[in-house]
């Protein structure tokens, strides 16, 4: 695979063009990965609205009917509920891990088994989350994809 990079000042936004002789699984994965950077979540913090790139999102959680987006160092609130976010992000690296949490698998450092048939996820920022037994298969399937 040849990698060509062009610096063009006149462009309004970054363009990525992929030329291929045949569509392969590797290219499909590459496209999915690039699309992840294009995915923005809207969140607000102290009355300011932010566009958060999906690759910066660690997890999404609902607490007392409010939904929060957690990045490595910030917490944003969103007006969407977790079911809406789950369906909107179905084709991305986001997966449900419990009744109230969605996890971005790009933020996962490792997992280990945890009592009562659950898994404990260690995130790249050192935080820990629990995966309910009901969602372990979904997590595996999402990573396999």
């Amino acid at each position, binding site marked *: 695979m040849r990698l060509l990079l062009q610096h063009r000042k006149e462009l309004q936004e970054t363009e990525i063009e992929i030329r291929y002789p045949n569509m392969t699984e590797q290219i499909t994965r590459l496209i999915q990965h690039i699309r992840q950077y294009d995915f923005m979540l809207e969140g607000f913090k102290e009355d300011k609205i932010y566009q958060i790139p999906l690759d910066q999102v660690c997890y999404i959680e609902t607490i007392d009917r409010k939904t929060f987006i957690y990045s490595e160092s910030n917490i944003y609130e969103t007006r969407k509920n977790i079911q809406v976010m789950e369906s909107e992000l179905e084709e991305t690296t986001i997966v449900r891990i419990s009744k109230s949490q969605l996890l971005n698998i790009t933020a*996962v450092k*490792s997992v*280990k*088994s*945890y*009592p*009562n*048939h659950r*898994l404990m996820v260690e995130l790249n920022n050192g935080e820990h989350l629990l995966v309910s037994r009901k969602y372990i298969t979904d997590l595996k399937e999402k990573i396999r994809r």
Partner: protein
Amino acid sequence: MVHKILKTYIPAISMCFTVIILLAGIINLVTEGTKNLFIGFAFEVAGYLVLTCILDELIGRINFKTFLGHFFAEAALLYPVNLFFAVNLKWIGINTRSIILCSIVYFFVMAANHLYFYYMEKSSAEEINQLLEDWRDRNV
């Protein structure tokens, strides 16, 4: 091979054994209409196991931090249930020797069960870590 035995054969044998015994009991009851002692015992054990599963689900709502904590709490909470069934349904005689033996069997089965799931979940976590590594290799 060990993994295949634990993940496939032990659950398959357990499920088939249970279904065969219960179906044989039902057929025996329907066709012969007599109460076979062994079949009666099998139904009682099935009922006892269903009840322990319900209790396990309720105990599981406690957020245990360690595998040992989960094991000891569950073993202690289910032990009186086990003794109640064993004594009231006359699975054992009411004497010290029978109660001690029943308790040993109970704790052995409980420990084996917990060890089995501990091993399976640990290997599931290792599998996910491997999948994560492969995923990173593919995507980065």
